[in-house]
Protein backbone atom coordinates (compact mmCIF):
# COMPACT_ATOMS: atom_id res chain seq x y z
CA UNK A 1 0.00 0.00 0.00
CA UNK A 2 2.82 2.36 0.95
CA UNK A 3 4.60 1.39 -2.20
CA UNK A 4 1.54 2.29 -4.17
CA UNK A 5 1.38 5.72 -2.52
CA UNK A 6 4.99 6.43 -3.32
CA UNK A 7 4.53 5.47 -6.94
CA UNK A 8 1.11 7.08 -7.33
CA UNK A 9 2.36 10.46 -8.65
CA UNK A 10 4.38 8.64 -11.31
CA UNK A 11 1.40 6.55 -12.35
CA UNK A 12 -0.89 9.57 -12.43
CA UNK A 13 1.65 11.48 -14.48
CA UNK A 14 2.07 8.62 -16.92
CA UNK A 15 -1.67 8.15 -17.24
CA UNK A 16 -2.48 11.83 -17.80
CA UNK A 17 0.47 12.89 -19.93
CA UNK A 18 1.43 9.69 -21.71
CA UNK A 19 -1.38 7.19 -21.89
CA UNK A 20 -4.25 9.65 -22.36
CA UNK A 21 -2.62 11.56 -25.27
CA UNK A 22 -1.71 8.24 -26.88
CA UNK A 23 -5.31 7.10 -26.62
CA UNK A 24 -6.51 10.40 -28.09
CA UNK A 25 -4.09 9.99 -31.00
CA UNK A 26 -5.33 6.43 -31.48
CA UNK A 27 -8.95 7.62 -31.44
CA UNK A 28 -8.22 10.41 -33.91
CA UNK A 29 -6.40 8.01 -36.21
CA UNK A 30 -9.54 5.91 -36.43
CA UNK A 31 -11.74 8.92 -37.30
CA UNK A 32 -12.23 10.76 -40.57
CA UNK A 33 -11.30 14.33 -41.53
CA UNK A 34 -14.15 16.84 -41.45
CA UNK A 35 -14.76 20.57 -41.57
CA UNK A 36 -14.91 21.95 -38.07
CA UNK A 37 -13.00 22.27 -34.86
CA UNK A 38 -11.44 19.82 -34.23
CA UNK A 39 -11.25 18.83 -37.87
CA UNK A 40 -12.11 15.23 -37.19
CA UNK A 41 -15.22 13.11 -37.05
CA UNK A 42 -14.83 10.28 -34.53
CA UNK A 43 -15.89 6.91 -35.86
CA UNK A 44 -14.33 3.48 -36.29
CA UNK A 45 -12.82 3.78 -39.72
CA UNK A 46 -9.53 2.36 -40.95
CA UNK A 47 -9.40 4.76 -43.86
CA UNK A 48 -6.44 6.76 -42.59
CA UNK A 49 -4.39 3.56 -42.19
CA UNK A 50 -5.19 2.68 -45.80
CA UNK A 51 -4.02 6.18 -46.77
CA UNK A 52 -0.62 5.83 -45.16
CA UNK A 53 0.06 2.44 -46.79
CA UNK A 54 1.34 4.52 -49.66
CA UNK A 55 4.80 4.75 -51.19
CA UNK A 56 5.03 8.44 -50.23
CA UNK A 57 4.76 7.65 -46.52
CA UNK A 58 6.88 4.54 -46.79
CA UNK A 59 9.61 6.59 -48.40
CA UNK A 60 9.43 9.11 -45.55
CA UNK A 61 9.65 6.22 -43.09
CA UNK A 62 12.68 4.81 -44.91
CA UNK A 63 14.24 8.28 -44.92
CA UNK A 64 13.72 8.57 -41.17
CA UNK A 65 15.12 5.10 -40.59
CA UNK A 66 18.22 6.03 -42.54
CA UNK A 67 18.66 9.34 -40.75
CA UNK A 68 18.14 7.80 -37.30
CA UNK A 69 20.29 4.79 -38.12
CA UNK A 70 23.21 6.80 -39.46
CA UNK A 71 22.99 9.27 -36.59
CA UNK A 72 22.85 6.48 -33.97
CA UNK A 73 25.89 4.77 -35.43
CA UNK A 74 27.73 8.08 -35.68
CA UNK A 75 26.87 8.81 -32.04
CA UNK A 76 28.13 5.36 -31.07
CA UNK A 77 31.39 5.75 -32.97
CA UNK A 78 32.05 9.19 -31.53
CA UNK A 79 30.48 8.59 -28.13
CA UNK A 80 32.18 5.30 -27.26
CA UNK A 81 35.74 6.65 -27.25
CA UNK A 82 34.49 9.71 -25.37
CA UNK A 83 32.73 7.62 -22.71
CA UNK A 84 35.74 5.32 -22.43
CA UNK A 85 38.11 8.25 -22.05
CA UNK A 86 35.94 9.81 -19.35
CA UNK A 87 35.55 6.49 -17.53
CA UNK A 88 39.33 5.99 -17.58
CA UNK A 89 40.14 9.57 -16.59
CA UNK A 90 41.25 10.22 -13.03
CA UNK A 91 38.41 10.47 -10.52
CA UNK A 92 39.30 14.12 -10.05
CA UNK A 93 38.82 15.05 -13.69
CA UNK A 94 35.71 12.98 -14.42
CA UNK A 95 33.12 15.49 -13.11
CA UNK A 96 34.61 18.21 -15.30
CA UNK A 97 34.56 16.01 -18.41
CA UNK A 98 30.97 14.93 -17.72
CA UNK A 99 29.96 18.55 -17.32
CA UNK A 100 31.49 19.31 -20.70
CA UNK A 101 29.38 16.54 -22.25
CA UNK A 102 26.12 18.04 -20.99
CA UNK A 103 27.24 21.66 -21.32
CA UNK A 104 25.33 22.18 -24.63
CA UNK A 105 22.07 21.72 -22.68
CA UNK A 106 22.78 25.03 -20.98
CA UNK A 107 21.87 26.74 -24.27
CA UNK A 108 18.50 26.43 -25.95
CA UNK A 109 18.12 23.72 -28.54
CA UNK A 110 16.78 26.02 -31.27
CA UNK A 111 19.51 28.54 -30.65
CA UNK A 112 22.18 25.91 -31.13
CA UNK A 113 20.55 24.67 -34.34
CA UNK A 114 20.37 28.19 -35.67
CA UNK A 115 24.08 28.44 -34.96
CA UNK A 116 24.57 25.36 -37.12
CA UNK A 117 22.69 27.08 -39.94
CA UNK A 118 25.15 29.94 -39.65
CA UNK A 119 28.06 27.52 -39.66
CA UNK A 120 26.93 25.47 -42.64
CA UNK A 121 25.17 27.95 -44.92
CA UNK A 122 26.77 29.01 -48.21
CA UNK A 123 29.29 31.66 -47.36
CA UNK A 124 29.05 30.70 -43.66
CA UNK A 125 31.85 30.00 -41.22
CA UNK A 126 32.62 26.56 -42.64
CA UNK A 127 32.93 27.85 -46.20
CA UNK A 128 35.06 30.75 -44.98
CA UNK A 129 37.36 28.33 -43.19
CA UNK A 130 37.56 26.05 -46.21
CA UNK A 131 38.23 29.02 -48.47
CA UNK A 132 41.04 30.19 -46.20
CA UNK A 133 42.94 26.96 -46.86
CA UNK A 134 42.11 27.05 -50.57
CA UNK A 135 39.29 24.50 -50.60
CA UNK A 136 35.98 24.92 -52.46
CA UNK A 137 32.81 25.61 -50.42
CA UNK A 138 31.06 22.52 -49.01
CA UNK A 139 27.39 23.42 -49.71
CA UNK A 140 26.37 21.34 -46.68
CA UNK A 141 23.26 23.16 -45.53
CA UNK A 142 19.95 21.64 -46.75
CA UNK A 143 21.55 18.28 -47.50
CA UNK A 144 21.11 14.90 -45.71
CA UNK A 145 24.67 15.31 -44.41
CA UNK A 146 23.64 18.44 -42.52
CA UNK A 147 20.78 16.48 -40.89
CA UNK A 148 23.12 13.64 -39.86
CA UNK A 149 25.50 16.21 -38.44
CA UNK A 150 22.77 18.05 -36.55
CA UNK A 151 21.19 14.94 -35.05
CA UNK A 152 24.56 13.45 -34.11
CA UNK A 153 25.51 16.72 -32.46
CA UNK A 154 22.26 17.08 -30.53
CA UNK A 155 21.93 13.48 -29.36
CA UNK A 156 25.55 12.65 -28.56
CA UNK A 157 25.14 13.19 -24.79
CA UNK A 158 22.33 10.62 -24.72
CA UNK A 159 24.81 8.08 -26.07
CA UNK A 160 27.74 9.08 -23.90
CA UNK A 161 25.96 9.04 -20.54
CA UNK A 162 24.64 5.43 -20.48
CA UNK A 163 27.88 4.21 -22.03
CA UNK A 164 29.87 6.04 -19.40
CA UNK A 165 27.71 4.61 -16.62
CA UNK A 166 28.47 1.13 -17.90
CA UNK A 167 32.16 1.63 -18.60
CA UNK A 168 32.88 2.95 -15.10
CA UNK A 169 31.74 -0.43 -13.76
CA UNK A 170 35.03 -1.72 -14.99
CA UNK A 171 36.58 -4.85 -13.62
CA UNK A 172 40.27 -4.29 -13.94
CA UNK A 173 41.02 -7.89 -12.95
CA UNK A 174 39.20 -9.14 -16.07
CA UNK A 175 41.29 -6.96 -18.33
CA UNK A 176 44.43 -8.00 -16.52
CA UNK A 177 43.45 -11.65 -16.83
CA UNK A 178 43.02 -11.22 -20.58
CA UNK A 179 46.41 -9.51 -20.91
CA UNK A 180 47.95 -12.23 -18.76
CA UNK A 181 46.55 -14.86 -21.12
CA UNK A 182 48.30 -13.28 -24.07
CA UNK A 183 45.87 -10.63 -25.32
CA UNK A 184 47.38 -7.39 -26.63
CA UNK A 185 45.74 -4.18 -25.36
CA UNK A 186 43.65 -4.01 -28.53
CA UNK A 187 42.52 -7.64 -28.10
CA UNK A 188 41.68 -6.98 -24.47
CA UNK A 189 39.38 -4.22 -25.61
CA UNK A 190 37.77 -6.29 -28.37
CA UNK A 191 37.26 -9.46 -26.33
CA UNK A 192 36.56 -8.15 -22.82
CA UNK A 193 35.90 -4.41 -22.51
CA UNK A 194 33.65 -4.11 -25.56
CA UNK A 195 31.43 -7.19 -25.00
CA UNK A 196 30.98 -6.30 -21.35
CA UNK A 197 29.87 -2.77 -22.29
CA UNK A 198 27.01 -3.95 -24.56
CA UNK A 199 24.44 -3.34 -21.77
CA UNK A 200 25.41 0.33 -22.11
CA UNK A 201 25.56 0.36 -25.90
CA UNK A 202 21.96 -0.79 -26.45
CA UNK A 203 20.29 1.83 -24.20
CA UNK A 204 22.50 4.47 -25.80
CA UNK A 205 21.44 3.40 -29.27
CA UNK A 206 17.76 3.38 -28.24
CA UNK A 207 18.04 6.80 -26.60
CA UNK A 208 19.39 8.26 -29.83
CA UNK A 209 17.48 6.22 -32.38
CA UNK A 210 13.97 6.63 -30.97
CA UNK A 211 13.84 10.44 -30.75
CA UNK A 212 15.84 10.74 -33.98
CA UNK A 213 13.17 8.72 -35.77
CA UNK A 214 10.48 11.25 -34.95
CA UNK A 215 12.76 14.29 -35.13
CA UNK A 216 11.10 17.25 -36.83
CA UNK A 217 13.03 20.38 -36.01
CA UNK A 218 16.49 19.31 -37.16
CA UNK A 219 15.45 18.04 -40.63
CA UNK A 220 13.23 21.10 -40.98
CA UNK A 221 15.98 23.61 -40.18
CA UNK A 222 18.99 21.85 -41.70
CA UNK A 223 17.55 19.41 -44.21
CA UNK A 224 15.83 21.38 -46.91
CA UNK A 225 13.09 19.87 -49.05
CA UNK A 226 15.15 16.79 -49.98
CA UNK A 227 15.09 15.29 -46.50
CA UNK A 228 11.42 14.43 -46.12
CA UNK A 229 11.41 12.55 -42.79
CA UNK A 230 8.38 11.08 -41.10
CA UNK A 231 8.44 13.92 -38.56
CA UNK A 232 8.11 16.52 -41.28
CA UNK A 233 5.37 14.56 -43.07
CA UNK A 234 3.48 14.35 -39.78
CA UNK A 235 3.80 18.08 -39.32
CA UNK A 236 2.52 18.90 -42.79
CA UNK A 237 -0.42 16.48 -42.47
CA UNK A 238 -1.42 18.11 -39.19
CA UNK A 239 -0.85 21.77 -39.92
CA UNK A 240 -0.79 22.17 -43.69
CA UNK A 241 -3.36 19.57 -44.81
CA UNK A 242 -5.26 19.61 -41.52
CA UNK A 243 -5.67 15.83 -41.99
CA UNK A 244 -5.57 14.78 -38.36
CA UNK A 245 -6.56 11.14 -38.84
CA UNK A 246 -3.74 10.49 -41.32
CA UNK A 247 -1.19 12.27 -39.12
CA UNK A 248 -2.43 10.32 -36.08
CA UNK A 249 -2.27 7.03 -37.94
CA UNK A 250 1.33 7.80 -38.87
CA UNK A 251 2.14 8.68 -35.27
CA UNK A 252 0.51 5.47 -34.02
CA UNK A 253 2.43 3.28 -36.43
CA UNK A 254 5.65 5.05 -35.59
CA UNK A 255 5.08 4.65 -31.84
CA UNK A 256 4.37 0.94 -32.13
CA UNK A 257 7.37 0.43 -34.38
CA UNK A 258 9.61 2.17 -31.87
CA UNK A 259 8.21 0.68 -28.70
CA UNK A 260 8.61 -2.90 -29.89
CA UNK A 261 12.42 -3.10 -30.09
CA UNK A 262 12.82 -1.15 -26.84
CA UNK A 263 10.34 -3.44 -25.09
CA UNK A 264 12.14 -6.48 -26.47
CA UNK A 265 15.43 -5.25 -24.98
CA UNK A 266 13.77 -4.51 -21.63
CA UNK A 267 12.22 -7.95 -21.57
CA UNK A 268 15.56 -9.59 -22.30
CA UNK A 269 17.27 -7.61 -19.57
CA UNK A 270 14.51 -8.49 -17.13
CA UNK A 271 15.01 -12.20 -17.76
CA UNK A 272 18.70 -12.08 -16.87
Amino acid at each position, binding site marked *: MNRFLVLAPAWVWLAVFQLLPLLIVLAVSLGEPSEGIPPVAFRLSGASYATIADVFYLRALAQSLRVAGVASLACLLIGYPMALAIARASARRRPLLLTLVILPFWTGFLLRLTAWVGLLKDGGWLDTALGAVGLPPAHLLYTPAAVYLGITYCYLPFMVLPLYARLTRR*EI*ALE*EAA*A*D*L*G*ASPWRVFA*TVTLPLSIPGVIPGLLLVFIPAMGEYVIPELLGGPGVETIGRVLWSEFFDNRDWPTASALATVLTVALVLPAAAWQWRQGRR
Partner: protein
Amino acid sequence: MADGPEALLLWIEALRKRYGAVEALRGVSLDIAAGELFVLLGGSGSGKTTLLRTIAGFERPDAGRILLRGEDVTALPPHRRPVNMMFQSYALFPHLKVAENIAYGLRRMGLGRAERDAKVERLLDLVRLTGLGDRRPDTLSGGQRQRVALARALAREPALLLLDEPLSALDRSLREETREELAALQRRLGMAFVLVTHDQEEALTMASRIGVMRDGLLVQVGTPRELYEQPADRELATFIGGANVLAAEVQVAAPDAVLLVPGITKLVRAATEAPADGQIWLALRPERLRLGADGANVAEGVLEGISYRGDVVTRTVRLPDGSALRATTAASDGAEPRPGDALALSWSPDACILLRA
Protein backbone atom coordinates in the same frame (compact mmCIF):
# COMPACT_ATOMS: atom_id res chain seq x y z
CA MET B 1 68.25 -24.37 -3.78
CA ALA B 2 71.17 -26.59 -4.52
CA ASP B 3 70.53 -26.73 -8.26
CA GLY B 4 72.98 -25.20 -10.68
CA PRO B 5 72.25 -21.87 -12.38
CA GLU B 6 70.93 -23.63 -15.49
CA ALA B 7 68.02 -24.88 -13.39
CA LEU B 8 67.14 -21.34 -12.35
CA LEU B 9 63.80 -20.40 -13.78
CA LEU B 10 63.26 -16.99 -12.30
CA TRP B 11 65.91 -14.64 -11.13
CA ILE B 12 64.89 -11.42 -9.45
CA GLU B 13 67.40 -8.76 -8.59
CA ALA B 14 66.95 -5.80 -6.25
CA LEU B 15 63.35 -4.93 -7.21
CA ARG B 16 62.05 -1.62 -5.99
CA LYS B 17 58.58 -0.19 -6.39
CA ARG B 18 57.12 2.93 -4.86
CA TYR B 19 53.51 4.15 -4.86
CA GLY B 20 53.58 7.77 -3.80
CA ALA B 21 54.86 7.78 -0.26
CA VAL B 22 54.62 4.01 0.16
CA GLU B 23 57.53 1.80 -0.75
CA ALA B 24 55.92 -1.51 -1.64
CA LEU B 25 59.17 -3.23 -2.61
CA ARG B 26 62.42 -2.11 -1.05
CA GLY B 27 65.02 -4.16 -2.85
CA VAL B 28 63.79 -7.73 -3.24
CA SER B 29 66.07 -10.39 -4.70
CA LEU B 30 64.95 -13.96 -5.22
CA ASP B 31 65.78 -17.08 -7.22
CA ILE B 32 63.22 -19.70 -8.11
CA ALA B 33 64.15 -23.06 -9.61
CA ALA B 34 62.14 -25.12 -12.06
CA GLY B 35 59.56 -27.34 -10.41
CA GLU B 36 59.41 -25.41 -7.15
CA LEU B 37 56.29 -24.55 -5.20
CA PHE B 38 57.45 -21.28 -3.77
CA VAL B 39 55.16 -19.53 -1.31
CA LEU B 40 55.33 -15.81 -0.66
CA LEU B 41 54.04 -15.37 2.86
CA GLY B 42 53.22 -12.06 4.44
CA GLY B 43 50.55 -9.89 5.98
CA SER B 44 48.57 -7.28 4.08
CA GLY B 45 50.76 -4.44 2.89
CA SER B 46 53.89 -6.57 3.09
CA GLY B 47 54.52 -6.26 -0.66
CA LYS B 48 53.86 -9.90 -1.54
CA THR B 49 51.09 -9.12 -4.03
CA THR B 50 53.10 -6.28 -5.57
CA LEU B 51 55.98 -8.71 -6.07
CA LEU B 52 53.66 -11.23 -7.74
CA ARG B 53 52.12 -8.55 -9.97
CA THR B 54 55.57 -7.34 -10.91
CA ILE B 55 56.54 -10.86 -12.00
CA ALA B 56 53.31 -11.04 -14.05
CA GLY B 57 54.07 -7.67 -15.64
CA PHE B 58 51.14 -5.65 -14.26
CA GLU B 59 53.52 -3.44 -12.31
CA ARG B 60 56.70 -1.96 -13.72
CA PRO B 61 59.43 -1.85 -11.06
CA ASP B 62 61.22 1.43 -10.40
CA ALA B 63 64.51 -0.43 -10.20
CA GLY B 64 65.79 -3.97 -10.46
CA ARG B 65 65.56 -6.77 -12.99
CA ILE B 66 63.50 -9.87 -13.60
CA LEU B 67 65.01 -12.69 -15.65
CA LEU B 68 62.94 -15.64 -16.81
CA ARG B 69 65.03 -18.55 -18.08
CA GLY B 70 67.89 -16.12 -18.47
CA GLU B 71 65.88 -13.63 -20.54
CA ASP B 72 65.31 -10.14 -19.18
CA VAL B 73 61.54 -9.61 -19.07
CA THR B 74 61.51 -6.52 -16.85
CA ALA B 75 60.18 -4.27 -19.61
CA LEU B 76 57.84 -6.80 -21.27
CA PRO B 77 54.08 -6.23 -21.04
CA PRO B 78 52.03 -9.03 -19.42
CA HIS B 79 50.84 -10.52 -22.71
CA ARG B 80 54.41 -11.16 -23.85
CA ARG B 81 55.53 -12.99 -20.70
CA PRO B 82 55.61 -16.80 -20.49
CA VAL B 83 53.95 -16.69 -17.08
CA ASN B 84 50.30 -16.93 -16.18
CA MET B 85 48.43 -15.87 -13.14
CA MET B 86 45.49 -17.18 -11.20
CA PHE B 87 43.68 -14.21 -9.72
CA GLN B 88 42.40 -13.99 -6.18
CA SER B 89 38.95 -13.03 -7.49
CA TYR B 90 39.41 -15.68 -10.25
CA ALA B 91 38.56 -12.96 -12.82
CA LEU B 92 36.54 -15.37 -14.95
CA PHE B 93 35.04 -13.73 -18.03
CA PRO B 94 31.31 -13.56 -17.24
CA HIS B 95 30.30 -13.34 -20.91
CA LEU B 96 32.13 -16.53 -21.86
CA LYS B 97 31.31 -20.15 -21.12
CA VAL B 98 33.64 -22.23 -18.97
CA ALA B 99 35.25 -23.86 -22.03
CA GLU B 100 35.66 -20.45 -23.71
CA ASN B 101 37.27 -19.09 -20.57
CA ILE B 102 39.79 -21.91 -20.58
CA ALA B 103 40.34 -21.58 -24.32
CA TYR B 104 40.91 -17.82 -24.12
CA GLY B 105 44.68 -18.08 -23.76
CA LEU B 106 44.86 -20.85 -26.34
CA ARG B 107 43.09 -18.70 -28.93
CA ARG B 108 45.65 -15.96 -28.38
CA MET B 109 48.34 -18.55 -29.17
CA GLY B 110 46.67 -19.15 -32.53
CA LEU B 111 45.90 -22.79 -31.81
CA GLY B 112 43.51 -24.46 -34.27
CA ARG B 113 39.99 -25.23 -33.19
CA ALA B 114 40.35 -29.03 -32.95
CA GLU B 115 43.55 -28.79 -30.98
CA ARG B 116 42.03 -26.15 -28.73
CA ASP B 117 38.92 -28.21 -28.03
CA ALA B 118 40.97 -31.30 -27.23
CA LYS B 119 43.15 -29.33 -24.86
CA VAL B 120 40.17 -27.74 -23.11
CA GLU B 121 38.69 -31.21 -22.60
CA ARG B 122 41.94 -32.44 -21.05
CA LEU B 123 42.08 -29.41 -18.75
CA LEU B 124 38.45 -29.88 -17.70
CA ASP B 125 39.29 -33.48 -16.81
CA LEU B 126 42.41 -32.37 -14.97
CA VAL B 127 40.47 -30.05 -12.67
CA ARG B 128 37.51 -32.46 -12.38
CA LEU B 129 35.03 -30.31 -14.27
CA THR B 130 34.34 -32.80 -17.04
CA GLY B 131 31.10 -31.94 -18.83
CA LEU B 132 30.76 -28.44 -17.40
CA GLY B 133 32.36 -26.68 -20.38
CA ASP B 134 29.07 -25.25 -21.62
CA ARG B 135 28.12 -23.64 -18.32
CA ARG B 136 28.47 -19.97 -17.54
CA PRO B 137 30.85 -19.12 -14.70
CA ASP B 138 28.06 -17.58 -12.61
CA THR B 139 26.21 -20.89 -12.51
CA LEU B 140 29.14 -22.65 -10.80
CA SER B 141 29.94 -23.06 -7.12
CA GLY B 142 32.88 -21.25 -5.58
CA GLY B 143 35.04 -24.36 -5.66
CA GLN B 144 34.18 -25.01 -9.29
CA ARG B 145 34.99 -21.43 -10.26
CA GLN B 146 38.31 -21.75 -8.51
CA ARG B 147 39.11 -24.79 -10.62
CA VAL B 148 38.08 -23.05 -13.85
CA ALA B 149 40.47 -20.24 -12.97
CA LEU B 150 43.21 -22.79 -12.37
CA ALA B 151 42.55 -24.60 -15.65
CA ARG B 152 42.54 -21.31 -17.55
CA ALA B 153 45.86 -20.29 -16.02
CA LEU B 154 47.40 -23.70 -16.78
CA ALA B 155 46.16 -23.82 -20.38
CA ARG B 156 49.15 -22.08 -21.94
CA GLU B 157 51.55 -24.32 -20.02
CA PRO B 158 53.40 -21.34 -18.58
CA ALA B 159 57.00 -21.61 -17.44
CA LEU B 160 55.78 -20.28 -14.13
CA LEU B 161 52.32 -20.12 -12.62
CA LEU B 162 51.53 -17.27 -10.27
CA LEU B 163 48.72 -17.80 -7.77
CA ASP B 164 47.36 -14.85 -5.81
CA GLU B 165 45.70 -16.16 -2.63
CA PRO B 166 44.17 -19.03 -4.62
CA LEU B 167 42.35 -20.55 -1.67
CA SER B 168 41.24 -17.48 0.27
CA ALA B 169 37.74 -17.37 -1.24
CA LEU B 170 36.94 -20.97 -0.27
CA ASP B 171 35.42 -22.02 3.02
CA ARG B 172 37.63 -23.74 5.53
CA SER B 173 37.00 -27.43 4.86
CA LEU B 174 37.18 -26.97 1.10
CA ARG B 175 40.31 -24.91 1.52
CA GLU B 176 42.20 -27.69 3.28
CA GLU B 177 41.14 -30.27 0.73
CA THR B 178 42.01 -27.97 -2.18
CA ARG B 179 45.37 -27.18 -0.63
CA GLU B 180 46.43 -30.81 -0.90
CA GLU B 181 44.99 -31.16 -4.39
CA LEU B 182 46.81 -28.09 -5.60
CA ALA B 183 50.14 -29.24 -4.18
CA ALA B 184 49.65 -32.71 -5.69
CA LEU B 185 48.80 -31.16 -9.07
CA GLN B 186 51.92 -29.02 -8.92
CA ARG B 187 54.10 -32.06 -8.26
CA ARG B 188 52.44 -33.99 -11.05
CA LEU B 189 52.84 -31.20 -13.62
CA GLY B 190 56.34 -30.34 -12.45
CA MET B 191 55.48 -26.71 -13.18
CA ALA B 192 56.94 -24.03 -10.95
CA PHE B 193 54.31 -22.25 -8.84
CA VAL B 194 54.70 -18.99 -6.97
CA LEU B 195 51.83 -18.75 -4.53
CA VAL B 196 50.97 -15.73 -2.43
CA THR B 197 49.24 -16.22 0.90
CA HIS B 198 48.83 -14.65 4.32
CA ASP B 199 48.04 -18.03 5.87
CA GLN B 200 51.13 -19.50 7.52
CA GLU B 201 49.59 -22.94 7.80
CA GLU B 202 48.94 -22.94 4.06
CA ALA B 203 52.55 -21.92 3.48
CA LEU B 204 54.00 -24.58 5.76
CA THR B 205 51.93 -27.44 4.36
CA MET B 206 52.29 -26.62 0.66
CA ALA B 207 55.61 -24.95 0.04
CA SER B 208 58.87 -26.44 -1.05
CA ARG B 209 60.30 -23.08 -0.02
CA ILE B 210 58.81 -20.06 1.67
CA GLY B 211 59.78 -16.44 1.32
CA VAL B 212 58.47 -14.30 4.15
CA MET B 213 57.77 -10.68 3.24
CA ARG B 214 57.44 -7.76 5.58
CA ASP B 215 57.48 -4.02 4.83
CA GLY B 216 58.57 -4.55 1.24
CA LEU B 217 61.48 -6.82 2.10
CA LEU B 218 62.04 -10.55 1.99
CA VAL B 219 62.99 -11.15 5.61
CA GLN B 220 63.67 -14.85 5.31
CA VAL B 221 63.72 -17.49 2.58
CA GLY B 222 63.92 -21.18 3.37
CA THR B 223 62.18 -24.52 3.55
CA PRO B 224 59.21 -24.73 5.91
CA ARG B 225 61.38 -26.65 8.37
CA GLU B 226 64.15 -24.05 8.26
CA LEU B 227 61.66 -21.27 8.87
CA TYR B 228 60.08 -23.11 11.72
CA GLU B 229 63.26 -24.24 13.44
CA GLN B 230 65.45 -21.23 12.73
CA PRO B 231 63.23 -18.17 12.36
CA ALA B 232 65.21 -15.08 11.44
CA ASP B 233 63.75 -12.85 14.12
CA ARG B 234 61.23 -12.53 16.90
CA GLU B 235 58.33 -11.55 14.68
CA LEU B 236 58.86 -14.57 12.44
CA ALA B 237 59.01 -16.87 15.45
CA THR B 238 55.58 -15.70 16.56
CA PHE B 239 54.11 -15.33 13.04
CA ILE B 240 54.99 -18.89 12.06
CA GLY B 241 53.86 -21.42 14.64
CA GLY B 242 53.14 -18.89 17.35
CA ALA B 243 56.24 -19.30 19.54
CA ASN B 244 56.46 -18.08 23.15
CA VAL B 245 58.99 -15.27 23.25
CA LEU B 246 60.73 -14.23 26.46
CA ALA B 247 63.33 -11.55 27.05
CA ALA B 248 66.59 -13.12 28.19
CA GLU B 249 70.02 -11.99 29.30
CA VAL B 250 73.07 -13.88 28.08
CA GLN B 251 75.21 -15.20 30.94
CA VAL B 252 77.43 -17.49 28.86
CA ALA B 253 77.41 -17.04 25.10
CA ALA B 254 79.41 -20.05 23.79
CA PRO B 255 79.71 -22.89 23.07
CA ASP B 256 76.21 -23.43 24.46
CA ALA B 257 74.42 -20.35 25.72
CA VAL B 258 73.27 -19.99 29.28
CA LEU B 259 70.52 -17.44 29.84
CA LEU B 260 68.99 -15.57 32.72
CA VAL B 261 65.26 -15.18 32.13
CA PRO B 262 63.15 -13.00 34.43
CA GLY B 263 60.35 -15.14 35.74
CA ILE B 264 62.35 -18.37 35.58
CA THR B 265 64.29 -19.20 38.72
CA LYS B 266 66.91 -21.51 37.23
CA LEU B 267 69.30 -20.47 34.47
CA VAL B 268 68.11 -21.63 31.05
CA ARG B 269 70.48 -23.78 29.02
CA ALA B 270 70.35 -23.77 25.25
CA ALA B 271 71.96 -26.14 22.73
CA THR B 272 73.37 -23.39 20.50
CA GLU B 273 75.51 -20.35 21.07
CA ALA B 274 73.93 -16.97 21.68
CA PRO B 275 73.57 -14.70 18.63
CA ALA B 276 74.74 -11.69 20.64
CA ASP B 277 75.82 -10.64 24.10
CA GLY B 278 73.51 -8.92 26.53
CA GLN B 279 69.78 -8.90 25.84
CA ILE B 280 68.35 -11.42 23.40
CA TRP B 281 65.00 -13.16 22.83
CA LEU B 282 64.33 -16.73 23.82
CA ALA B 283 61.67 -18.36 21.63
CA LEU B 284 60.01 -21.61 22.72
CA ARG B 285 57.58 -23.55 20.56
CA PRO B 286 54.43 -24.44 22.55
CA GLU B 287 54.61 -28.08 21.45
CA ARG B 288 58.20 -28.43 22.73
CA LEU B 289 57.11 -27.67 26.30
CA ARG B 290 56.18 -30.58 28.56
CA LEU B 291 54.15 -30.59 31.74
CA GLY B 292 56.10 -31.33 34.92
CA ALA B 293 59.43 -30.39 36.39
CA ASP B 294 61.67 -33.19 35.08
CA GLY B 295 63.76 -31.59 32.30
CA ALA B 296 66.93 -29.65 31.75
CA ASN B 297 65.01 -26.36 31.84
CA VAL B 298 62.07 -25.75 34.13
CA ALA B 299 59.72 -22.79 34.52
CA GLU B 300 57.24 -22.63 37.37
CA GLY B 301 54.08 -20.61 37.33
CA VAL B 302 50.32 -20.65 37.74
CA LEU B 303 47.96 -22.24 35.23
CA GLU B 304 45.80 -19.48 33.86
CA GLY B 305 43.81 -20.90 30.98
CA ILE B 306 43.08 -24.11 29.13
CA SER B 307 42.07 -24.16 25.50
CA TYR B 308 40.86 -27.53 24.36
CA ARG B 309 40.97 -28.30 20.63
CA GLY B 310 40.11 -31.98 20.58
CA ASP B 311 43.42 -33.45 19.50
CA VAL B 312 45.56 -31.08 21.53
CA VAL B 313 45.25 -28.91 24.60
CA THR B 314 46.99 -25.57 24.99
CA ARG B 315 47.64 -24.38 28.55
CA THR B 316 48.73 -20.87 29.41
CA VAL B 317 51.04 -20.61 32.41
CA ARG B 318 51.66 -17.22 34.01
CA LEU B 319 55.23 -16.84 35.28
CA PRO B 320 56.03 -14.83 38.47
CA ASP B 321 57.24 -11.81 36.45
CA GLY B 322 53.97 -11.59 34.55
CA SER B 323 55.10 -13.13 31.27
CA ALA B 324 53.24 -16.18 29.98
CA LEU B 325 54.11 -19.48 28.36
CA ARG B 326 51.73 -21.53 26.23
CA ALA B 327 52.29 -25.27 26.17
CA THR B 328 50.55 -27.53 23.66
CA THR B 329 50.26 -31.21 24.51
CA ALA B 330 48.23 -34.16 23.34
CA ALA B 331 44.71 -34.01 24.74
CA SER B 332 45.16 -37.45 26.25
CA ASP B 333 48.09 -36.44 28.46
CA GLY B 334 46.13 -37.26 31.60
CA ALA B 335 47.02 -34.05 33.40
CA GLU B 336 44.18 -32.51 35.34
CA PRO B 337 45.49 -29.23 36.77
CA ARG B 338 42.87 -26.55 37.07
CA PRO B 339 43.22 -22.83 36.51
CA GLY B 340 44.85 -21.34 39.58
CA ASP B 341 46.93 -24.48 40.29
CA ALA B 342 50.70 -24.26 40.32
CA LEU B 343 52.13 -25.82 37.16
CA ALA B 344 55.71 -26.45 36.05
CA LEU B 345 56.79 -26.64 32.40
CA SER B 346 60.03 -28.16 31.19
CA TRP B 347 61.95 -28.37 27.95
CA SER B 348 65.24 -29.59 26.59
CA PRO B 349 68.11 -27.29 25.62
CA ASP B 350 67.59 -27.94 21.91
CA ALA B 351 64.08 -26.50 22.12
CA CYS B 352 65.57 -23.08 22.80
CA ILE B 353 65.55 -20.75 19.78
CA LEU B 354 67.80 -17.78 20.40
CA LEU B 355 67.09 -14.57 18.51
CA ARG B 356 68.88 -11.27 18.31
CA ALA B 357 67.02 -8.50 20.08
